[in-house]
């Protein structure tokens, strides 16, 4: 990457490479803060599961493991298309990269649609966080034994909810990339935003990879 080829060079940097390296380190530092944000919820999860192991196992049966597994596959595939998009823009094929970005966006939509059906079923059964918890006795609803099942659903909704917000944020960023790639802003001389959003998207994927077994596959 030489300075003259990069139309987005900022003049407080010495050269384009310094600018790229700075963005990358900044993004990693930001991802560290993301991990620690989720760490608080993982910590709460660990403590309440330790206190109420039976309730957690009973409550997790209310979650649909098939839908969860489908979503895991969807997100991992979206990470692959994202990684390919970065690769294609690196080797100066922005049009192919654009196709992969659009695919990533579609996968992200798919994830949210599946998530919507999962949430909808929780609302139907009254499996809701905290004070809203009001279990129904419909035939398609699991009844949950044990102490404080509302805490499980508090944790479930807060963790998947915060993750969902990150998916939406990722989609906004990917849309921004799609528009800029379409306008021809990215070439092998400058693709920093594609790589940075890619890093963010992989983190969103990674968090889900932890959420899925911890919530859907226990017991």
């Amino acid at each position, binding site marked *: 990457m030489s300075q003259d080829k990069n139309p987005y060079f900022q003049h407080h940097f010495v050269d384009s490479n310094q600018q790229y390296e700075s963005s990358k380190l900044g993004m990693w530092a930001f991802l560290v803060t993301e991990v*620690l944000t989720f760490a608080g919820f993982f910590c709460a999860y660990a403590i309440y599961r330790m206190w109420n192991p039976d309730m957690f196992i009973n409550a997790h049966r209310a979650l649909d493991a098939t839908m969860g597994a489908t979503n895991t596959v969807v997100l991992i595939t979206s990470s692959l298309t994202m990684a390919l998009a970065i690769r294609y823009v690196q080797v100066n094929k922005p049009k192919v990269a654009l196709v992969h970005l659009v695919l990533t966006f579609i996968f992200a939509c798919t994830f949210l649609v599946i998530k919507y059906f999962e949430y909808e079923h929780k609302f139907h059964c009254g499996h809701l966080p905290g004070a809203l918890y009001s279990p129904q006795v419909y035939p398609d609803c699991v009844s949950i034994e044990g102490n404080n099942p509302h*805490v499980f659903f508090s944790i479930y909704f807060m963790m998947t909810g915060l993750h969902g917000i990150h998916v939406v944020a990722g989609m906004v960023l990917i849309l921004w990339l799609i528009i800029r790639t379409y306008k021809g802003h990215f070439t092998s001389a400058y693709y920093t935003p594609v790589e940075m959003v890619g890093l963010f998207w992989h983190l969103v994927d990674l968090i889900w990879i932890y959420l899925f077994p911890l919530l859907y596959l226990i017991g």
Partner: protein
Amino acid sequence: MREYLENNYLNDKTTIRSWLVTYDHKRIGLMYLFAIMFFFAVGGILALMMRLELITPAGGDLLDKNTYNVFYTLHGAIMIFMFIIPSVPAAMGNIILPIMLGTKDVAFPKLNLASWYVYVVGSAIGIFSIVSGGVDTGWTFYTPYSSSTDTAVMSMTFAVFVLGFSSIFTGINFIVTIHKMRAPGLNWFSLPLFVWSLYATALIQILATPVIAVTMILLIMERTLQVGIFDPAMGGDPVLFQHFFWFYSHPAVYIMILPGMGIISELISTFSKKKIFGYTYIAASTMAIALFGFLVWGHHMFTSQSEFAALIFSVITYLTALPSGVKIFNWLATLYRARISFEAPMLYALNFLLLFAIGGLTGIFLGTLSVDVMLHDTYFVVAHFHYVMMGGTVIAFLGGLHYWWPKIFGRMYSEKWARISAIMIFFGFNLTFIPQFIMGSLGMPRRYWQYDGLKNTDVFHFYHQLSTIGSWFIALSFLIMLVYLIHSIKNGKVAGSNPWGALTLEWQTPSPAPAHNFLEEPKISHGPYDYDKIEIDRTIDK
């Protein structure tokens, strides 16, 4: 080179808009400086009114009891989240760090400006919570009280959440700037120690601040949905809140003190005209404090956890004293047989050494389990905290403010009044807080609105009076400072590029600095403290 740079960052563009959309780190730092000084004044006035209430043992002289509860909560929350945390890094560090590194700006100027706006929005939400009734939980927001009180806990905790992002943005910016933007030839061990301290601070900012964000979200969720994480009535654990809160807030006291220690390293070496003693050890102890800071949160909870856990946290707390001691002794060794000059910044540095030593040593008392059982929740804790935070950080901040003032505005303040004010703060501060140590050791509980009818009321009354009189001394010296500093901006003597004869890079550029920091590429020809090798003339008379 005793001249005032006519075309500088202050008058490069002069419209209000040019300030509000500036990406210049010096201007952003200056906007931070004004904002935090405003909140320092607000928090200070709250403290003065509380001290005035305590001048008699009876309650209700000035404030009713609910107002008193609101005042100590707001005093704590404003001083910590809106003043001390951004004071040295976001205000002072923003202005000085890139110049010290010989670069044109921080790595992400837009993010830097965003951090200021996020800070302003967070503070506005904080002010909203004040006008909508205030908060009476104490700045620690402990559950279950905070999840059940009717006061404006939601908006205040949301303000803390938002302010956290401004802190994180600054942290990310500084880490990247220090890693990637150093001038050629400036390697890690030729960095000024202020840079090291900002680096350690930035690491804590990005590692700890997200945890307070989660904690505040959980508290807000607890109040809206009763999620049952912290509220015992819903199956939650209030002690978990304390763990989460202190997992951030203990490292946060190092966010507050480490940059102050960095300033002190600069001041002591500059005004002793001697190479700093044990550079590597001071740098390493900075990193060690940052590390230990993450491992001692449990010492805020000696009375609410198992004895074994308390024992472990007590031992690690002792360990934290080691790197702080390393710093103190290195500073003393730097002073040993040096040609010390006693200008205002140096008076603050010497103030710091004494006050921080008292603050640090009384911290050991509190870290000792058996002693803490007696002292916890007394005025001893209040006094300890103020010796570290005000005697430490605020004094260091004032030292830095006086040290870099001529670089920021290009003019000198009145040295005579600066010395008078520094000495008055020293007396006022000790008069305010030494009585609090004594009262605390005699059992005066903190956060009491009245102390009628206690066993030692007469004794407490005497010490409270001393403490209140001391607080007026502090207020008076800050008023003097306000006058001479504002006066100096237009009318001070021209400072020139290097009024102190210091060796770090920021003194090699004219004052005030040009918009892009340097008129020509800075050259690294010597280390930051090589006073044993070269001597640079001061641009003002001694």
